[in-house]
């Protein structure tokens, strides 16, 4: 019952805001905030329950949605450690971001619309988290896409925002194309959509490896789209067109992590298909590296954070790919805290400076102390400095990579850690220190914004201790439950931890050397690699100008040409033309003279007699 309540309260809030309280802005925001906070309170009970019983049995509740012979689709809820963890992350981060938004969006004409969309998003996200079958997860998968579309395009009068929202939706659709096909393949093989039933069938075995491989790859497509992995990563940076709280909530903390969550949900499938796992791991690793390099050369504060998110998502997916399910989920959790923090703090900075370009800020720390402090804490966590949360979670991933003998990926991981530390340092120094480059009078944000920042900062710093490898029960005890193929712990590896600490410190040092001085523009500008990275390796150009403009629109043009010229002009109008022309010829016989007709008639009678008569 509680789970249904959690699921539907945000929906009710969204409906209520849309139809009833649209004009009372304050009330709308209170309803939305109240809904998500209430959900948080409701979800405390299952969390406590989980803490008491680490090896809880999954609790399912469902009703039949479509029921015809051969197809039985349910709508239901599933409570197991994985979903409870996600529930906690979503409700907790969601609540803070909702509260923050009240300050951030203050005075915006679409205030109520914003909160309605946020509520809709929370509803859809709960749907993903709580769903017990593939169809339901797909439904909510699409619905988070919808709410993401609505929120990215929130400032719909801006063409860039409209384009970004469209792009996000369509790119996600491409991923979902694979996802739904994967669901079909799996349904074909197992005859059910239910996660637990599928796991039972998979455990029994008997399904051909090729089918599993295909299903795993196709389902991964969904994760690639939603978690913005290469080659569908292009939508996430553009999604920063939305309001900053949206970036924090949807495009950093929760929705984009859904891909990782999906991989965790279907861990058994991947466990049974090691080839697919390799693909997952390498795609993740490549994305992490690519995004990290691009992040170095961005000047928009939100975009830097966005690319760092991409990089982190790549990290998580890589973790999933090497079998580090617990590590990935742990990183997901800590990442949700520190990345939401970074975005919200960035939003607070933007709120103060009215610009997103870091080269128009500088020395901001003096003006926005609280924001600056929390931002720096978040950056340290992101960079993975001991003992911040990022250190522990990143370390688990690196350990998982190392112990599963993916040395190449391990090297990438270390490299990414180095670059991450470097660009976070760059971001912090250029934005908050150095010389003043801003205009106007920036001021600190109101408490409604700073308090969530502080709370998030606390979690960003401390949440890593939940996964300390030396204590039982820790994070992994709960998550790596028996139902998930039992990917074990990887323990603590001093070599890995040491190496990562060294490279992180090196990255910070390098950043300090380059950026901690009086600057007006990036000293690395002019470097070829910088240029490439600054232009995001021309992926957008390639997609827009070649794939979309040439191939996609080209096919449409060809089809239209065929339609207009061949079908309509040649066949249809050609047929009409033939009829008309033959009519023109035949009508010459109708002279309008009565006696001609009569003559022909009589001649016809004679002819008929001659032909058929009894002569």
């Amino acid at each position, binding site marked *: 019952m509680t789970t249904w309540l959690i699921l539907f309260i945000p929906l009710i809030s969204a409906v209520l805001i849309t139809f009833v309280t649209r004009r009372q802005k304050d009330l709308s925001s209170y309803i939305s905030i109240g809904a998500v906070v209430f959900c948080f309170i409701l979800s405390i009970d299952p969390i406590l329950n989980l803490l008491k019983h680490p090896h809880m049995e999954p609790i399912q509740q469902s009703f039949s949605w479509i029921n015809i012979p051969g197809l039985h689709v349910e709508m239901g809820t599933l409570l197991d450690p994985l979903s409870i963890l996600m529930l906690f992350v979503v409700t907790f981060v969601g609540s803070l971001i909702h509260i923050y938004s009240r300050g951030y969006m203050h005075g915006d004409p679409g205030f109520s619309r914003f909160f309605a969309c946020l509520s809709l998003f929370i509803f859809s996200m709960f749907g993903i988290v709580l769903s017990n079958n593939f169809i339901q997860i797909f439904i909510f998968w699409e619905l988070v896409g919808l709410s993401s579309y609505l929120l990215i395009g929130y400032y719909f009068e801006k063409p860039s925002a409209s384009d970004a929202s469209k792009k996000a939706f369509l790119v996600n659709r491409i991923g979902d194309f694979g996802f739904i096909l994967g669901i079909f393949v799996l349904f074909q093989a197992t005859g059910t959509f239910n996660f637990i039933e599928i796991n039972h069938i998979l455990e029994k075995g008997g399904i051909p490896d090729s089918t599993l491989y295909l299903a795993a790859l196709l389902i991964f497509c969904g994760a690639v789209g939603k978690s913005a992995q290469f080659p569908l990563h292009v939508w996430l940076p553009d999604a920063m067109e939305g309001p900053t709280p949206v970036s924090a909530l949807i495009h950093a903390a929760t929705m984009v992590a859904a891909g990782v969550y999906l991989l965790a949900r279907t861990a058994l499938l991947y466990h049974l298909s090691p080839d697919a796992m390799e693909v997952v791991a390498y795609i993740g690793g490549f994305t992490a590296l690519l995004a990290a390099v691009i992040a170095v050369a961005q000047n928009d504060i939100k975009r830097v954070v966005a690319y760092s998110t991409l990089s982190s998502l790549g990290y998580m997916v890589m973790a999933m790919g090497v079998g580090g399910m617990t590590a990935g989920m742990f990183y997901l959790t800590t990442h949700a805290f520190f990345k939401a923090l970074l975005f919200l703090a960035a939003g607070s900075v933007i709120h103060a400076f009215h610009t997103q370009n870091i080269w128009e800020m500088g020395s901001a720390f003096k003006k926005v102390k609280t924001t600056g402090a929390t931002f720096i804490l978040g950056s340290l966590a992101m960079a993975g400095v001991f003992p911040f949360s990022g250190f522990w979670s990143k370390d688990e991933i690196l350990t998982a990579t190392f112990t599963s003998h993916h040395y190449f990926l391990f090297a990438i991981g270390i490299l990414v850690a180095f670059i991450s530390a470097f660009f976070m340092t760059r971001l912090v120094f250029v934005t908050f220190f150095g010389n003043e480059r801003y205009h106007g009078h920036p001021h600190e944000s109101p408490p409604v914004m700073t308090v969530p920042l502080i709370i998030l900062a606390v979690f960003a710093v401390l949440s890593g201790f939940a996964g300390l490898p030396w204590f039982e029960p820790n994070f992994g005890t709960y998550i790596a439950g028996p139902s998930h193929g039992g990917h074990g712990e990887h323990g603590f590896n001093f070599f890995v931890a040491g190496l990562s600490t060294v490279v992180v410190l090196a990255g910070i040092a390098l950043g300090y050397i380059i950026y901690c001085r009086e600057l007006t523009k990036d000293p690395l500008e002019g470097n070829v690699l910088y240029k490439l990275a600054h232009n995001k390796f021309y992926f957008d150009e390639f997609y827009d100008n070649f794939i979309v403009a040439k191939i996609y629109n080209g096919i449409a043009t060809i089809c239209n040409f065929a339609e207009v010229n061949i079908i309509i002009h040649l066949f249809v109008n050609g047929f009409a033309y033939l009829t008309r022309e033959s009519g023109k010829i035949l009508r010459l016989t109708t002279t309008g003279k009565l*006696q001609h007709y009569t*003559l022909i008639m009589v*001649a016809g009678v*004679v002819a008929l*007699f*001659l032909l058929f008569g009894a*002569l």
Partner: protein
Amino acid sequence: MEKLFFLIFAVIAIVSAIGVVSLRNPVHSAISLMVCFLQVAALFILLRSPFLAAVQVFIYVGAVVVLFLFAVMVLDLGKERFGGYLHHQRPIALVVVIGFVFVMGFTILHGSLDAPLGNYTEEALVKNTEIMGKLLFTKYVFPFEVVSFLLLIALIGAIVLAMKEKR
């Protein structure tokens, strides 16, 4: 005796028919047509259908020919306006008509009639008119009604058509 009458009637009928189509003055044509109608009426009597002969005389001679004459008179058409043949299709028309005569004549001469005979023999036909009246109001009452309705419509139609248009 009968053959003689037939011959007389037939020859007059044909001659007058040729007159109808060949005479230049429409009044003469109409009168020629009347002669032809009378011959056909006479032939009806030979065929033991006195009622039809009477009808033929009443309607054709009494009404149709008079109508034609009326039309010619009312329109007051000069003789010269009415004369003339269509010259351009005359040869083909003649060929076709002769072909028609040949074909039909051949059929008539070589054809044979084998159909079940009815029971209206010459003796029964003494009460010719009575029989016909009975049939018209019993078996053929529906066509009879249709035709009378048609006649009514034709009547109205003719009046409407011939009415002078109101300015």
